[in-house]
């Protein structure tokens, strides 16, 4: 079974803090993705990576950065958290010819 894990299920941070969300997959997938999910807006792609050290902006990259130093790990960074970044964050991974498999999500609250 594909397994995608995320470092935290729930996280509470203060405005201006630097926040790291980590994602690990165990299927040797080339592609990894970070989404945020908000009521009424569905899943929106923040960034994705198709190889180690490679990244591409998704639909809403502003306020976020990513890091992929190892194939199995993809990190999402909020340089200076703001209240409008309160959301559910979902990581996913896929091979080049397969569907995306999601992690359990991190519910981030920025106060």
């Amino acid at each position: 079974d594909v397994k995608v894990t995320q470092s935290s299920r729930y996280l509470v941070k203060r405005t201006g803090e630097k926040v790291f969300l980590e994602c690990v997959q165990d299927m040797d997938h080339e592609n990894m993705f970070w989404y945020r999910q908000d009521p009424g807006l569905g899943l929106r792609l923040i960034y994705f990576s198709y190889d180690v050290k490679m990244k591409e902006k998704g639909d809403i990259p502003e306020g976020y950065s990513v890091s992929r130093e190892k194939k199995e790990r993809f990190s999402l960074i909020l340089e200076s958290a703001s209240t409008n970044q309160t959301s559910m964050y979902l990581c996913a991974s896929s091979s080049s010819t397969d569907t995306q498999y999601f992690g359990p999500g991190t519910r981030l609250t920025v106060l």
Partner: protein
Amino acid sequence: GESVGLHLPTLSVQEGDNSIINCAYSNSASDYFIWYKQESGKGPQFIIDIRSNMDKRQGQRVTVLLNKTVKHLSLQIAATQPGDSAVYFCAENWSGGSNYKLTFGKGTLLTVNP
């Protein structure tokens, strides 16, 4: 722009009935489609997928139908159970595009009444 949408935002069924959840897509070049199930507070879970060279695919209690003529996708759940209560959403992909990025629909909330 291209989009994936759902006809019904909510669907309520009785336990044991069959459920049908619909999805319309607008990109005629899309060639890969996926259905996900998302329970409250959890990440989306892959249910079933279908490629455009097929019009029907069956899994365990689920069937996906693809009608490319009208750009319509449906998910049928047989003998719906309370554990099927969740948000279901479809996703589409065009393999000629960028690295298998998916376009997601907003979702349909399925409620199963005992």
